[in-house]
Every structure is written in structure tokens, then in C-alpha cells.
């Protein structure tokens, strides 16, 4: 055995073709050209389609970043693996959505430009994705329950989108997010119907997440027009299903539906219009720092 083979890093480096350096932060979906360059559906405005892809992509991107904060902090190893897997699924969805947004807007920005080089007002995610849960496990589960229930209802309908990329991301995502929702629901049962301590903390966590629900069902102007073109899903139409599913879980978990008013808007504007809580800036600081410090780095 040569000295090179003895060294794990050398051996690994040896398998990498010098013509194929790996971009350190993403890997590019140029190879998906056939999918990503599909024509914008009739009746849809390209700029609005790009914005819609950013909405759904940023929800997944920012929330996946918050989920990864649990790596090395989860209560048990299996849970750490689970949360990392869920984050990875969402990151995968985000990559395709951002790549599609970049193609449709036609400003020569790829998924990495959009993820790492936009500033806070250019993000289109809902506020639910933004705050740190401060490594409170009940909060992590409460947010996962709400996010996955809402996203599953949305993706389920989006499979019929006139945009082939949105339809493909949705068809794939439905299978993944079904697992995410089941995972959150079972933890909610275990904690809610557990000890007095776990019940109280799960109830507190629900109260923490509840103000974010209102925004999930607010329809933005671009969404309204894209719904008419058969491209987007109207979030207002998800309200009853999402509350029905969450209600089923809370009932079995002996938890009480919080009676807390939803977070307000600022002059009618919210995350979909680029108006965010300061928590997003904190998330982006961490998420974007490496790519900004080493632009174009590859390994």
C-alpha cells in the first residue's frame, strides 16, 4: 500500500477528475436542462412564475437551514438523523425550485446565486421558516407538524400544475413530505400524551408556532394570477384541510388548540412580499457566510 492510499483524503482526492471540480456549496443542475428550460405555460407571466418558484423554494431553503441546526443537538442519535434527512429532502426541493426560478427570470442567476447572494428583502419565504427554535425540541416538532401539514396539502394540489417543473417537484415532494408529517405527528402524540412535563412543553411549543399560521393561507397577487393560469395553488384553499389534520393530531395528543391571534402584516405586506422578521437575517448570516467568504470555491 502506498502512502497515498494510506491517507483517506488522498485516496478520496484521487477519485476526483480534475476536469470535474466540485463546487463546494452546491453542484449545479445544468444537467437538468431538459426539465428546467420547459416553456413558461400560457397565461403565466415569467417574472411571476419565477417569484412563485422562489416562494416555495425559499420556504424549503430557509426552513431546511433551521432544521440542520439540530445536527449534534438532538435528544437521540436517531432523531438527529431524522431531522437531517428531512432537511435534506427540503433542500433538494429548494434546489430545483431555485434553479427553475433562475432560468425563468432570465437574469443568468443559478441556484447558488439565488441561495447565497440575495439579501433579506429578496427572499419570499413565510415567517414560519425564519426563527430559531432555540433548540427546544417541542418547538422543533410543533413547527415540523405545521410546516409539513401545510406543504403536503400544497404539493398535493401542485402536482396538477401547468408548469412541468412545479408539477415534477410536487410529485416527488409529496412522497417525501408525507413521511415528514407522519414523523412530526407521532412525536406530537408521544410528547402531548406523555408526562406532565412533556405535555406542558408541547403545549407551550404550539403556542409559539401558532401566530405563524395565518400567513400560510394568505394569497399574494402573483399567486392569484398564477392560480388563474393553472400554475399555482391558492393557499387560502388549504386552510380547512390543514386545520383538520392538525386538529386530528392535537385531539389524539390531548393537546389544546391555542387561542392566539395570528401575527399581523406590515401595511398588508409579509414574507411573500419580502417583508421579514429580523430572524431571517440571523439565519442568512450563518447560511450565506461560507459561500460569501470563499466565492466560487471548489474541492
Amino acid at each position, binding site marked *: 500500500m502506498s502512502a497515498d492510499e494510506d491517507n483517506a483524503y488522498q485516496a478520496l482526492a484521487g477519485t476526483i477528475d480534475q476536469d470535474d471540480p466540485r463546487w463546494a456549496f452546491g453542484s449545479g443542475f445544468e444537467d437538468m436542462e431538459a426539465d428546467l428550460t420547459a416553456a413558461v405555460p400560457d397565461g403565466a407571466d415569467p417574472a411571476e412564475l419565477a417569484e412563485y418558484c422562489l416562494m416555495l423554494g425559499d420556504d424549503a431553503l430557509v426552513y431546511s437551514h433551521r432544521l440542520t441546526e439540530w445536527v449534534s443537538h438532538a435528544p437521540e442519535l436517531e432523531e438527529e438523523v431524522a431531522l437531517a434527512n428531512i432537511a*435534506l429532502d427540503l433542500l433538494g426541493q429548494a434546489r*430545483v425550485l431555485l434553479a427553475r426560478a433562475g432560468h425563468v427570470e432570465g437574469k443568468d442567476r443559478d441556484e447558488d446565486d439565488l441561495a447565497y447572494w440575495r439579501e433579506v428583502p429578496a427572499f419570499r419565504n413565510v415567517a414560519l421558516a425564519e426563527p430559531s427554535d432555540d433548540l427546544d425540541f417541542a418547538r422543533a416538532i410543533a413547527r415540523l407538524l405545521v410546516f409539513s401539514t401545510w406543504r403536503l396539502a400544497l404539493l398535493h394540489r401542485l402536482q396538477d400544475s401547468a408548469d*412541468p417543473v412545479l408539477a415534477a417537484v410536487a*410529485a416527488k415532494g409529496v412522497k417525501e413530505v408525507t*413521511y415528514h*408529517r*407522519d414523523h412530526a405527528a407521532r412525536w406530537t402524540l408521544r410528547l402531548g400524551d406523555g408526562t406532565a412535563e412533556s405535555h406542558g412543553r408541547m403545549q407551550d411549543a404550539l403556542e409559539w408556532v401558532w401566530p405563524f399560521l395565518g400567513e400560510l393561507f394568505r394569497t399574494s397577487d402573483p399567486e392569484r394570477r398564477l392560480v388563474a393560469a393553472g400554475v399555482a395553488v391558492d393557499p387560502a384553499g388549504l386552510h380547512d384541510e390543514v386545520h383538520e389534520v392538525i386538529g386530528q393530531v392535537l385531539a389524539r395528543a390531548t393537546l389544546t388548540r391555542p387561542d392566539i391571534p395570528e401575527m399581523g402584516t406590515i401595511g398588508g405586506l409579509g414574507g411573500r412580499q419580502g417583508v421579514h422578521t429580523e430572524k431571517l437575517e440571523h439565519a442568512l448570516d450563518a447560511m450565506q457566510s461560507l459561500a460569501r467568504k470563499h466565492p466560487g470555491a471548489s474541492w
Partner: protein
Amino acid sequence: MVTLSLGARDAVARVVDPEMPMLTLDDLGVIRSVSEQDDGVTVTITPTYSGCPAIEEMRADITRALADAGYGPIEVRTVFSPAWSTDWISESGRRKLADAGVAPPGRATPRAAGPIPLTLDPPATVVRCPQCGSPATEELSRFGPTACTALRRCTACREPFEHMKEI
């Protein structure tokens, strides 16, 4: 003029999955098409999960296998639609998984119309222990060491094992 080439397809089919090396890409069912044109070979594959980290390795391995077989230039494309299902894993792939101690997936449930039902109780499907064959096994975690597996334990022989979950 596009013609299917058995030679190029065979070279791709033999490539093994980076995370499940007991399976070839053919066993896994991720190869959509291999077409040989005058100016090279185009391979189309589908990822198992949206964020599957192995997809880049698969692309590199396919490119290497075709180059070694004398083909070039090579283009590997990724498509998401229709979405991959564990139902696409071949019978020989299922046997190889079991032989390697990974319980193969059952049949994915066909999607019914309407909202997707919530599963609050562990599914009643029987997953047999790949070591001793006992049907008395329990789920430890929905999410295993790779995106496509869950962790289970046999209550008869007490061995933990992975189960490729239906998707």
C-alpha cells in the same frame, strides 16, 4: 437518428449505487434511458429522493464506466418526472438487499384520490427480519443512515437492521 445500444446500456447498468453497493443502478431502477448518438452517449437517470446526495457520485461513476468502455463524449441528465418509486427495484435487487441484511421494500401503496391520510399509528405491514426471518420486528426510526432506509429491530433475534422504506 437515435438508436439504443446494448453495449452502452450494459456499461451503465453494471454501475453500482454509491450508498447501496449491493445494488446496480439497473437493480435500483434509476436508469431512464441510454441513447447513443453519432456524437456521444446521453444517459438519463432519476434521483431516488429530491436531495439524494448520491446523485453526483452516480453521475461521475456512469461517466467513468462509459469512458472506460470506450464511449464519449458522455452526457448524464437528471429528470424528476415521473417520480422514482421503490416499486422500480428489480426482483434480483430485492434479493440482493435481503442477502446484504437490508429488508427490501414492500409495494408502495397506490395513491388514492383526495387528501393524503395521516398515519398516526405505525403501519401494520409486516417487515421480516433479514437475519432470522421472523415477522416480529419493530420500527426504531423512520429515517436511517441513508435517505431511503428506516431503522428496525427484530424482537426475536434482537438484531437491528435497515429497511428500505416504500416510497
